[in-house]
């Protein structure tokens, strides 16, 4: 299952929560928003094979 974060792609195994996937990538769940198949969602959602997952960093701008 593929996760996109800051224009980079990551592979993780499916059937884990978005929160666990975020932690596996070494990110803080507080610092990203989860978009699954184009829809903003909470990080307790379970990610399935074939889901298009995008993590949006909340820190931006200057």
């Amino acid at each position, binding site marked *: 299952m593929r996760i996109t974060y800051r224009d980079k792609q990551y592979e993780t195994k499916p059937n884990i929560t978005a929160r666990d996937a975020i932690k596996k990538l070494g990110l803080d769940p507080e610092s990203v928003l989860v978009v699954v198949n184009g829809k903003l969602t909470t990080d307790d959602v379970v990610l399935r094979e074939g889901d298009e997952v995008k993590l*949006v960093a909340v820190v931006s701008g200057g």
Partner: protein
Amino acid sequence: MRHHKLALCAEHYGEWFVAQTERAIEKYRMFSRDERVLVAVSGGKDSLALWDALLRLGYHADGLYIALGINDPIPYSDASLEKTRKFVDSGEWRVAKDDAPLAPRPTLYIVDIPAAYGKTIPEIARAKMRGQGRPCAACGLTKRYVMNRLALEKGYTVLATGHNLDDEIAVLFQNTLRWQTGYLARQAPVLPASREGLVKKVKPFCRFYERETATYALARSIDYIYDECPHAGGNLTNFYKTLLNQLETESPGSKLSFYLEFLRARGEGAFEQFNRVEELHACELCGQPTSAPERCAFCRMWNVSRIVE
């Protein structure tokens, strides 16, 4: 738990967010509906979300974009101006809250620093600091000056910035670590126009988590600049934000209580004795208030560069 607000659909999240914005404006007596508000917009999520929310609430809110000329190694300034223009042209902000009148098209003021003063921010910083360090000091000084001056010249009584809770507590944390009591005394959701020549400054998003303003921007499909300024990487503010996010993850609610408890202590006068009133007078060149004896820091910085040239 606040984050469960995310479970709301985009439309209801937007309504909740806009209502919370209004509550903050009223609670801290930021401004009234008769006042003209100038929003400092950067093309980022917070400032565009703020402009959007104020227009939806029916406030008279115009925007000020300051072109800094930061286009290396990525075209950050050009891209963020483009996003800002797109926001105005898109008319997204027209979708007003039920009880507020539809907003007329807002005005966007653009102050182009390289065109007006002959150098980009990185160039003036290099000239001024001999290539040492980040351009952020020069940038911050320039932005503060231009915002205040334009607001006064165009007759705005209020300057609103998109600072969110994470921005505020990163600064609070830094000032606490160093016990910068003077700064602590002056950190607040509202900085009144304490004297002639200074406009009132307000932060209507100061109680929103950064993820909440980002969520609003996404929910409203606001096309904002996602890249950070190339000079922001590795700065202390971001480091403190990371630390405070770790704390929040371990102990949810910590960030908000850190800020609100600070405001409570401040409101009870904990820092009052450090709030010294500086003697200000008009800069002999531009007339803006300054504590310096002759010319203000802005005029000095931009003039020095002309001599160096």
